[in-house]
């Protein structure tokens, strides 16, 4: 049986070998992404963003053909992600690693990027330390501190004196809690209570009740996407929270398109922070949304824009190096790059290689017959506050 398997593997290798003959004139991007499992939707949106860019700008840059090699991690699996990154480089001769939706996977693959000296573009994972793990990483999405510190700051300066925070009890949620509270407290606000609920929590009524008991000006809720936003909305309605009296604050996933559809009118008034929404009013974004809809029959979201700008960065860096795809040239080219994206102006910070962008505060309002996130405040050139800061 082992022999048969090795035989099959050898045969597959031979097939791949035939493909690798063209390695000189092509640049391969190993997309270490989630195509199946719980996070498959996020992975799909990132992939769509990249393929849309490639469709719009052709698949050749500086004389090199760009190819995507898709690898599925299946979910949170750092050992698999690391192996897939290794295989992308060793087996498929990838020059660039991309996608990376989940922090544990990104952190594991960062080691490979550092060891093999390959350019790595993080298109979603939002934990600050990722870019510090390898000198070849650049990020085109956002970081949790970047968004939540800004929200906390805004809240404290805009009439919200007391807040009750509730977050999912895992890395990104805890990150969000720490930085929101920091932004809030640094600007004079008072945190009257906080709770961390289990990650797979389906029911929020007890937690919302506990928050209501403390009677804060605002309730800050951080949850990942999925089924939870709808459940939160229901709990808010059932516990009788009046969103005009008690403001609901959160990050993008709380008010994503699917979340709003599931929550219905309960969601009116929710204030959230994000780097991108398909409702952003700019000609470039409107064109982007139309193109995305034509191709994929759905609206883009903050995952899609991470992929789209990630592809933009790879193309721009390759143009600048004239097609040289080694890690040192590409990262040197990427540092300091700035451009206008459908989300607004963005830049890759030359010191931290992390993203610097405009952060938007939005409110859920009825636009025509639909619920949309309408931007009403924005903060340009926000850097990630965690790099170099002591937590």
């Amino acid at each position, binding site marked *: 049986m082992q022999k048969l398997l*090795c035989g099959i593997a050898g045969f597959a290798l031979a097939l791949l070998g035939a493909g690798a003959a063209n390695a000189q004139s092509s640049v391969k991007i190993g997309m270490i992404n989630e195509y*199946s499992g719980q996070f498959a939707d996020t992975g799909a949106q990132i992939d769509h963003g990249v393929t849309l860019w490639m469709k719009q700008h052709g698949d050749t840059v500086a004389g090199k053909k760009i190819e995507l090699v898709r690898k*599925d991690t299946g979910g949170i699996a750092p*050992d698999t992600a*690391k192996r897939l990154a*290794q*295989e992308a*480089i060793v087996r498929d001769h990838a020059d660039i690693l991309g996608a990376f939706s989940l922090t544990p996977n990104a952190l594991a693959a960062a080691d490979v990027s550092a060891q093999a000296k390959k350019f790595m573009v993080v298109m979603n994972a939002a934990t600050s330390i990722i870019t510090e793990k390898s000198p070849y990483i650049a990020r085109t999405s956002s970081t949790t501190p970047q968004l939540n510190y800004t929200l906390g700051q805004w809240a404290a300066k805009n009439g919200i004196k007391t807040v009750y925070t509730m977050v999912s009890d895992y890395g990104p949620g805890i990150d969000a809690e720490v930085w929101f509270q920091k932004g809030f407290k640094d600007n004079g606000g008072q945190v009257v209570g906080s709770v961390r609920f*289990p990650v797979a929590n389906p029911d929020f009524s007890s937690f919302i009740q506990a928050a209501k008991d403390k009677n804060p000006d605002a309730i800050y809720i951080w949850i990942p996407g999925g089924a939870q936003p709808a459940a939160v909305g229901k709990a808010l309605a059932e516990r009788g929270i009046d969103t005009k009296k008690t403001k609901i604050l959160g990050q993008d996933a709380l008010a994503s398109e699917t979340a709003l559809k599931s929550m219905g009118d309960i969601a009116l008034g929710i204030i959230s922070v994000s780097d991108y929404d398909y409702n952003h009013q700019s000609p470039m974004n409107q064109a982007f949304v139309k193109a995305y809809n034509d191709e994929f029959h759905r609206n883009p979201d903050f995952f899609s824009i991470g992929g789209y700008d990630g592809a933009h960065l790879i193309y721009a860096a390759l143009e600048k190096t004239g097609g040289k795809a080694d890690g040192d040239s590409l990262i040197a080219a990427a540092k300091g790059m700035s451009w206008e994206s459908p989300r607004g102006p963005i830049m890759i910070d030359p010191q931290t290689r992390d993203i610097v962008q405009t952060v938007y505060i939005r409110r859920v309002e009825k636009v025509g017959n639909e619920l949309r996130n309408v931007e009403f405040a924005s903060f340009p050139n926000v850097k990630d506050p965690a790099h170099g800061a002591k937590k």
Partner: protein
Amino acid sequence: MTSDTLVAAAPAVPAAPHEFLHAQARWHWAEIAFWLATLLPFVLTPDYLALASQVAITALFALSLDLILGFSGIVSLGHAAYFGVGAYTAGLISVWGWGESLTGLVAAGLAAGIVGYITSFVIARFRHLALIMITLGFCLLLQEAANDANWLTGGFNGLQGVHTWKLLGTFEFDLYGYTAYAYALAALFLIFLLARRIIHSPFGLALRGIRENGARMPAIGAPTHSHIRTIYTIAAIIAGIAGAILTQTTETVSLEALGFQRSADVLVMLIVGGTGRLYGGLIGAAVYMVARDQFSGLNPQFWYFWIGLLLIAIVMFLPNGILGGLTSIAAYIKAKWAKAP
């Protein structure tokens, strides 16, 4: 019906217990061929060494589950608990400054063994669905505890700062995975020899008796509970070692090392390969992981579908797992040869 290992059939009427055991313990040519074949990836498919090393680690984990499930009848849905304890122990030792691999393995095995020993007191008292749920519950609890203790374990992001020193002071863990595979394979082989020795001993026979009819064994003088505790602890140690090797070769460890998904996956692999045959776990791990890798490469979004079909097909056509099917074929061929003049 007792299962036999991939070994020449014992004589129809065993002359004496010791001779029976000796006959069972002889090395079959197929076994030698198998172990030689495990060396092939170095030469034939060096691009797949990273996958090969993870197959070897999972095979070791599946072997430890076979000792309790296949040979002793203890169905566990939470065996990843010990894998995870071993993985985190090796990781933490490395983070605290000591990155030597072999001593890390010993420490991890010890830690997992202690946890296994303590839990074995509970395990030995239950059977059937209650046992399954207790093992599951314990593993889920441990995972939650590890998430809560994120000051120690790194929580969701995983443990950062794990760095393994050069193996035996000379071999760097390279990008291709030569060192990783050699390390994992060596550990697998050595521990396999140990497991084989255990199974082909009177203790091993007693375990099989317990599996077949646990109530009857004390009547012939076998201390059931104590045997179960022993094999459970041994299985925990081996699982812990497998976890440690994963941490050391990938320099990363996170909560999913303790997860339900990992426990369920290894159970599926063992059933696919064939329980109670020592090689079942190894073959099941190889088949399942390579199939998953290939399906995933061909069709990243829907490989679940093909794997599901594969599982259904195996259950329908190979009810005793792949090894069961192979031994049936071998027996059939032998019978045909015996008939021919």
